[in-house]
């Protein structure tokens, strides 16, 4: 664990990814909040969801962070030094998962709180409904956003183990987490509907919503879909990592 901790903080890339995560989260929260407030036509408006919606995009920073944590070693061959020093590979991978997840959970929840505050500040100046931190569901949504980012990082890490190349990993993560949901509406209606309800990175987003929607999953059910996906990938990553020739 301490070994992985040192490795994590002795490189610039993971630290940079964390910084990007926080900055993008705040910045996008302001932009999305402003845009959505201006488009508001008096219909349903979930101020919490609006101010946290940017995590659909910033999860890429979290996922890339997960990728970096494993790829920094596989890509440079340093994984051999690591595994020669610690032949129990499951321990190595578990330590990476724990360090990454904890770091992103703390940073991601902080970034989500920042986004909420920024989004709130923007929304207050517009003629739209707003919510305070104490309102029902708000703290769950902020914590949920942090969890969402954490799960994204774990998915990135698992993909990084399964796909050895960094560019391939980024492509898969981008497509799976971001591009499929964005282009879902271009698909036939049934497929689009299914994706918007069950696709892990979309279903997971329900956790930041404070308004129930009969067409979609409940917040925690949606999050469970995403978490289950991450756990499946992680299990595959463990199996692969334990057996593979390095």
């Amino acid at each position, binding site marked *: 664990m301490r070994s992985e901790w040192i490795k994590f903080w002795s490189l610039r890339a993971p630290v940079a990814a964390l910084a990007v995560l926080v900055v993008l989260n705040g910045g996008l929260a302001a932009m999305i909040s402003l845009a959505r407030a201006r488009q508001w036509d008096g219909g349903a408006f979930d101020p919490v969801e609006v101010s946290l919606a940017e995590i659909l995009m910033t999860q890429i920073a979290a996922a890339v962070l997960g990728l970096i944590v494993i790829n920094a070693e596989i890509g440079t061959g340093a994984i*051999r*030094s690591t595994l*020669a020093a610690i032949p129990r590979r499951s321990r190595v991978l578990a330590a990476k998962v724990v360090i990454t997840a904890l770091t992103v959970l703390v940073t991601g929840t902080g970034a989500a709180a920042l986004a909420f505050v920024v989004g709130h500040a923007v929304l207050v100046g517009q003629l739209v409904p707003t919510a305070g931190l104490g309102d029902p569901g708000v703290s769950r949504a902020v914590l949920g956003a942090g969890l969402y980012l954490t799960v994204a990082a774990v998915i990135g890490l698992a993909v990084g183990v399964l796909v050895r190349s960094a560019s391939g990993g980024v492509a898969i993560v981008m497509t799976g987490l971001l591009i499929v949901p964005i282009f879902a509406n271009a698909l036939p209606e049934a497929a689009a509907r299914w994706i918007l309800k069950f696709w892990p990175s979309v279903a997971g987003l329900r956790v930041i919503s404070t308004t129930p929607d009969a067409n979609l999953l409940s917040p925690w059910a949606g999050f469970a879909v995403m978490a289950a996906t991450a756990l499946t990938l992680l299990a595959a990553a463990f199996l692969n990592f334990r057996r593979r020739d390095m």
Partner: protein
Amino acid sequence: MLELRGLTKRYGDVTAVDDLSCVFRPGRVTGFLGPNGAGKTTTLLLALGLQRPDAGTVRVGGRRYTALDAPMREVGALLDAQAVHPNRSGRDHLRALAAGNRLPVARVGEVLERVGLSAVAGRRAGTFSLGMKQRLGIAAALLGDPAVLLLDEPINGLDPGGIAWVRALLRELAAEGRTVVLSSHLMSEMEQTADHLIVIGRGRLIADTSLTAFLDRAAPAGLLVRAEDPGFPAALSAAGGSVREVPEGGWLVFGLPAYEIGRLALTRRIVLTELSPRRGSLEEVFMSATASSTDFTGHASAPVSAVSGVPGGDPVRSARGSR
């Protein structure tokens, strides 16, 4: 002590290591020698548990490597000096490894001192020269003060001072009673450093013997002949000698005693400018021992073919290049 028993590793159709059994003993530098592609690195990867053998076992001091709690205390390895993250400092690289085996942080400073990197350890490893990376890799291998050291081509990229330093260090480590395994395709390196040789080709054991015994067995003593007549080699061949040209000028002659060559020169009124005994170098011995095992199936008796340059290709070139 490092013990291989029936070790076998296949990659698809290629058998990289083929039923290899041998023992690397403490208190001496064992040269692990073989042409490129002979399976040296694969053997080390198997020994370190980085790859799984298809058959056979590797034991370190009687135990399986992957069963060791703090393997760096038992085995120190330098596999590929380039395999460090370029953006991590040398010191952080060692700190992370030390933490992984619960080694005291003070060891990092000690090994950096021993390999002479203390002053630059805070720099990113990517800015290191290959020689510095080799030193960093050696530092990592020494971190756990292990009884067994596995070094894969540790002198690559070192300047002459660095090479002398590595040789002295390896001798020192062996004198301390450690098992030192020096893997290399550079035969000249073995001649300088190793006490014992384990030679493999195509993943199979070719020789497991002391350096001197290996030389005696396979290096025929020849005579270096220099003469002013370019036609002399033909006469030597006609008299039953086997002759080959030496790059520095002159010919190496096998199968004819010195007095025979002298008489031949006298009867032909040829001036001999040199007639001296010369033993084949380890390179040549090695070529003869592994010629049949390299992927190129060479011809005829080895010392001759070694200089005509073909069998084994790579080792010949690199051995020359290293002179």
